[in-house]
C-alpha cells in the first residue's frame, strides 16, 4: 500500500515532524547498572529508541581456541527484539544485525584496554527493545556505559549519534520517519578526548560540503552525549563526601 501523499518533513517554520529544529538532538535518558546478573549494564532511551546493553567479562574464553594470547577477545551482539519495529521482525539474526554487530564492536574495541586481560573474553550484548532510527548509535552509547559499569578499563567512553539530510537540509539525529523518507543517513561514534571517530557509515546522497556539515554536526552531538554519559555514571555512584578522618577506608595498596 504505497503512500501517495507527500509528507512534509520540515515545515514553514523550519521545524521537523516532532517539532525539533534542524540541529536539535532528541531527548536522551541514561541509566547505569540496571541488571543484576550482568557484570555491567546500562539502559538508554534516545528519542523513542529503548535499548538495553549488558557486559559480561572479562571472563574465561569458551571455547578455549578463540582466545588470543596477548589480549581479550571482544565479542559483540546487536539484536532487535521481534516487537521492536513497526512490522514484527523475525528473531533470527539478519544480515543487517550481523553487519551492525561487527561495526559496533569495531567502534567500542578501540576504547577497551583489552591487553590487560589476555586469554579471556569481554562480551557485549545490545538488545533493541524499541527502534526508531539511530539504534546502532544509541546502542554504542549504552554499551560504553555498560563496559564502564563492569569495571573494565577503558581509555574513555564512546558516544554515538547520527546526522542526515532531509528535504535537502542537513539535520541532526534522524527519527524513523526522517530516515525512511530522507535523503541521507550518517551514523557516527566518537571519543572526544582522543578526537577519534570509531564508527562512520553513510547511505543516501551527500555532496562534499553537506558531508562535512553533517560530520561536524554529529561529532558535536557526540560531545554532548558524552557529558550525559559521565553524568549517568556520577548518578549511579553518587558519593557522599567524607568529612572526617574517622572514616574507615582500607589503606591504599600502594
Amino acid at each position, binding site marked *: *500500500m*504505497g*503512500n501517495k501523499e507527500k509528507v512534509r518533513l520540515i515545515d514553514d517554520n523550519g521545524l521537523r515532524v516532532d517539532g525539533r529544529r534542524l540541529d536539535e538532538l532528541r531527548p536522551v535518558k541514561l541509566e547505569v547498572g540496571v541488571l543484576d546478573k550482568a557484570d555491567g549494564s546500562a539502559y538508554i532511551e534516545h528519542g523513542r529508541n529503548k535499548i538495553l546493553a549488558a557486559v559480561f567479562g572479562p571472563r574465561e574464553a569458551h571455547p578455549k581456541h*578463540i582466545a*588470543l594470547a*596477548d*589480549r*581479550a*577477545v*571482544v*565479542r*559483540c*551482539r546487536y539484536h532487535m527484539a521481534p516487537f521492536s519495529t513497526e512490522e514484527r521482525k523475525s528473531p533470527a539474526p539478519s*544480515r*543487517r544485525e*550481523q*553487519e551492525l*554487530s*561487527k*561495526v*559496533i*564492536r*569495531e567502534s567500542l*574495541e*578501540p576504547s577497551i584496554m*583489552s591487553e590487560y586481560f589476555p586469554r579471556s*573474553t569481554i*562480551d557485549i550484548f545490545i538488545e533493541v527493545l524499541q527502534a526508531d532510527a539511530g539504534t546502532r548509535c544509541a546502542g554504542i552509547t549504552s554499551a560504553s556505559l555498560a563496559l564502564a559499569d563492569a569495571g573494565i578499563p577503558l581509555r574513555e567512553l564512546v558516544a554515538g549519534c547520527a546526522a542526515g539530510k532531509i528535504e535537502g537540509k542537513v539535520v541532526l539525529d534522524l527519527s524513523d520517519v526522517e530516515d525512511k523518507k530522507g535523503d541521507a543517513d*550518517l551514523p557516527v561514534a566518537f*571519543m572526544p578526548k*582522543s*578526537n*577519534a*571517530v*570509531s*564508527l*562512520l*557509515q*553513510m*547511505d*543516501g*546522497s*551527500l*555532496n*562534499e560540503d553537506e*558531508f*562535512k556539515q553533517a*560530520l*561536524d554536526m554529529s*561529532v558535536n552531538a557526540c560531545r554532548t552525549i558524552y557529558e550525559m554519559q559521565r553524568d549517568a555514571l556520577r548518578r549511579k555512584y553518587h558519593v557522599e563526601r567524607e568529612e572526617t578522618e574517622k572514616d574507615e577506608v582500607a589503606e591504599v595498596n600502594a
Partner: protein
Amino acid sequence: MSATHQPSPLAKLEQKTINEIILKGKRIDERGPSDYRPLTITLGPVEKANGSAQVYLGKTKVLAGVKIQTGTPFEDTPNEGILSVNAEFVPLAFPTFEAGPPDENSIELARVVDRGIRESKAIDLQKLCIEAGKKVFMVFVDIYILDHDGNLIDAAGMAALGALVNSTMQEFEVKNGEIRYKDSKMALPMQNYPVPITSVKIGNSVVVDACLEEEQVMSCRLTVTTGKNDDVCAMQKGGLGTFTPEEIKQIVSSAIQKSRDLRAQIVSKVN
C-alpha cells in the same frame, strides 16, 4: 555474534618494515599513496548470466554475475524492481576462507556494495515494473571473490558495476497484465555508476587500494562510494583503529576525485 579477529599473520619485523616504508611516503610495491594497482576489467566472461564482469586489481581477482528474474515487489515499493547483492568468499580464494554461510566480512562487503548501487539509484528500478504491486524484475548481483590480495571492497564494487553495465535482458511489453517477451535484447536501465574507493590508515599515513600485507598492518579503513555527479552515496569505516574528523574530510575529498578516473575506465568498456 561478532568477535575480535585473529591477529595478523605478519611477523612484527614485517609489520615494522611496512610501517617504515609508508612513513617515507612510499609503499612496499613502490606505488604512491594514491595509486591503484594495475586494473583490468573484462566484461561478459559468463555468457549465461544476464551480465558479468571480472576485475583483476593487482593480484586480487573478483568475478560478479547478474541474474535477472521475475518476482513480487515489496509492499512499500509496488512500482519498483528489486535489487539483491550477495557476496561469497569462496574457499579457493584464500587459505583461511571456509565453506559455509556468509561470515561477517562477506556480509559487510555485500551490504556496502549494495548501498553504493542502491543509494546512487544506479539501476532505474521503476523501469523494471511489470505490473504494479504484482510483478517486477529482480536483479540479483552475486559477487564471487576468487583471489584475495587486499581491497576486496573496491574490486567487488567495480566488478558489480561492470556486471550491471554489461547486463542485458529480454525486451518486454505488458499487455492486459501479461508479460510478452520480444526477440530483441535491451540493456539493464542504468542511470548512475557508483565506484567505491577504500583508504587505509597505517600509522598516521593514509593510502588507497591496500594490498594484502598493507591490510594486515592497517589500523582501520574508510570506504567512500561516489556516483557520477560527485555525490557520495555510501561510506563505511572498518577495523579497530580510529580516524580524526579532519582525516575523514581529507579522505572523502580524495576519494571523490579518484572515483572519477575509475568510473571512466569502467564505463568506457561498455562502448
